[in-house]
């Protein structure tokens, strides 16, 4: 009886979802190592590849976490990433612009777009999903306005160097057949992603702005009475998210080095799924970027499974991820109802 009560108390606490996620990550990783060790699942390089492939997702998920904590949502991130890739490709390949200038332009675009969405949501009091749904279609359409053909970045040396530079780690070397020690490597994109993650983690945890986000998500009315400038804080959350979405787009572009209308379609569900799997409540007020990071890793493991298996269609990626999202949302709702019952 006592254990039952203890468990119930644990389940009702907000960190429990994150706990499940971390446990799940380790189980899935161990399972992958056991089943696919022949394909090299257990090597450090495979893990680093997960980070390289999902650097953009890590950044976007960090931004999404901030927005979801306020009780809002942003489904325009996938389109923003697609648009940013297209802008970068067009500016560097067609217009022949400097890499750093182009990057600055797209980051500025992210800020402006985030500001506009944030203003509509916070000051015009429009529902976040309507505004960002319109944003989703707006950016997707704008991508097609720039170019309907695929543009590959092939000439800009600075950008290509950035994309393919290997940063070797100083541990975990493997010896190949010829006896050469191979150190695992990452790309600069991973460094950018991890830095962004650390900054957002700090901002959410230790700054006034970060704490106000949680206050708004917990109860907007109380936050207002407490003296939080609710509208401005909300708007800044969307600006931050817009900026991070464009940064994610830049990092995404480092991986693909091209712009295409269909790029990053359906990316928003990956971002939202990572955030939700990481224990961030969609009703707002609870969440951590560390959780979202683990959410991204779980998504990466599923991807690696499907790649290692080799026979499954890549369409399974989306279906499995959606199913996982569905599972975690249901779990959240069950926990919420347990908590409601306890509070009554």
């Amino acid at each position, binding site marked *: 009886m006592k254990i039952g009560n203890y468990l119930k108390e644990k389940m009702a606490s907000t960190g429990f979802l994150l706990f499940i996620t971390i446990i799940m990550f380790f189980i899935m990783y161990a399972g992958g190592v056991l089943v696919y060790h022949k394909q090299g699942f257990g090597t450090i390089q495979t893990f680093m590849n997960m980070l390289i492939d999902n650097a953009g997702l890590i950044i976007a998920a960090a931004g999404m976490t901030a927005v979801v904590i306020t009780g809002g*949502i942003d*489904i325009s991130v996938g389109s923003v990433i697609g648009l940013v890739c297209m802008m970068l490709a067009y500016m560097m390949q067609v217009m022949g612009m400097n890499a750093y200038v182009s990057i600055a332009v797209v980051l500025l675009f992210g800020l402006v777009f985030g500001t506009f969405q944030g203003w*509509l949501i916070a*000051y*015009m*009091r*429009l*529902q976040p*999903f*309507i*505004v960002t*749904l*319109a*944003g*989703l*279609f*707006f950016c*997707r*359409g*704008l*991508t*097609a*306005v720039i170019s*309907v053909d695929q543009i590959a970045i092939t000439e800009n040396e600075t950008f290509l160097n950035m994309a393919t530079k290997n940063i070797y780690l100083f541990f975990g070397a493997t010896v190949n057949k010829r006896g050469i020690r191979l150190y695992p490597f990452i790309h600069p994109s991973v460094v950018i992603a991890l830095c962004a993650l650390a900054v957002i983690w700090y901002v959410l945890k230790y700054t006034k702005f970060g704490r106000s986000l949680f206050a708004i998500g917990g109860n907007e009315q109380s936050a207002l009475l407490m003296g939080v400038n609710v509208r401005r804080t909300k708007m800044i959350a969307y600006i931050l998210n817009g900026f991070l979405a464009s940064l994610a787009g830049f990092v995404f572009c480092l991986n693909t080095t091209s712009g295409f*209308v269909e790029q990053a379609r*359906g990316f*928003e*569900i990956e971002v*939202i799924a990572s955030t*939700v799997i990481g224990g961030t409540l*969609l*009703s707002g007020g609870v969440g951590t970027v560390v959780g979202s990071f683990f959410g991204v890793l779980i998504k990466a493991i599923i991807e690696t499974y499907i790649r290692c298996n080799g026979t499954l*269609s890549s*369409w*399974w*990626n*989306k*279906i499995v*991820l*959606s*199913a996982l*999202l*569905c599972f975690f*949302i*249901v779990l959240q*709702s*069950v926990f*919420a109802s347990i908590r409601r019952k306890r509070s009554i």
Partner: protein
Amino acid sequence: MNPDLRKLKNAVIAVSKKQLFLPVFALCIVLIVNVVKTPTFFNISIQNGVLYGYIVDIINRASELIILAVGMTLVIATGGIDISVGAVGAVAAAVCVRLLGSSYDAFATPLFLSIGIALLAGIACGAFNGFLVSRLKIQAMVATLILFTAGRGIAQLISAREIGGKMVPGQILYVRMESFKAIGGFLPGVVVPTPVFIALGVVIIAYFILTRTALGLYVKTVGINSKAGRLVGINSTFIIFMCYLICGFTAAIAGVVTSSRIYSSDANNIGLYMELDAILAVALGGNSLSGGKFSLLGSVIGAITIQALTTSLYAMGITADQLPVYKAIVVILIVSIQSDQLKHWIRNFRQKSGTVKAVVQ
């Protein structure tokens, strides 16, 4: 001011406050612009035994949107939203075409049976959404986001074709059945396109169910205050569930009509951007996106307006990929016009300018 003028002004204000004012007004603007640009806009002729003309084309193409808007109106009236309609349409189309058989010797299920199963698939998707929203109380946006992405993946998996002895998913399936064409085309000997009849049928049935039974009233009650609705004995969970179910059903009808129109099933493109169009139609119909009162007629006129807008934008040489830019701007404009905040600001502005005038005098 002249009393007659004042009367006229009051009448204009009274008309502009009617719910149907916005959609009718928008439709008129789009039509007038079109007539000015192409004077032959309203001409209708009979060519090859069927009706032919801009207006016919618009109403014909608007059919799927009208069908979708009926379901979407109900969902939005309960205070929810369904962004999975396009993907659900793609699933239904894939199921229907796969069952009909993409090659001569494949499944080759009878036409009515395969359409029935496709509609059932749509209802199942709707029930899934409805269950998540009504029973588990998940935000509608997020709950339907699951099928919004997974739906196209499922449709791709269903759209499998045998290539070199292996079933390869993600193919565009072609139908080889003449009678299937009739759903999105013309019935033999009838000059009006079939989708128009289907849309008309859906609207009339929905209208009678909503006005002749208490369902319409229940939906409104749930949308305005679901707690109060529950306290007076309305099973709001069930009502919300039913609305999503109906929405899935209408999405499936629209998907089947579209696939019949293009005579194949293209999981990537059937119903693409349709969710935005449907939401836009409902918003343009003067329905509040936060739920409550709704007008089916408004949504239907909204749907026709949007199709008219789409057709005229196509006529201006804008490609299908670029279209969402303009529609997104229209959505934001409409939602901003409807928002309470804007009304509040205008009222404040008027009061302020009123006091300034008084002070000056």
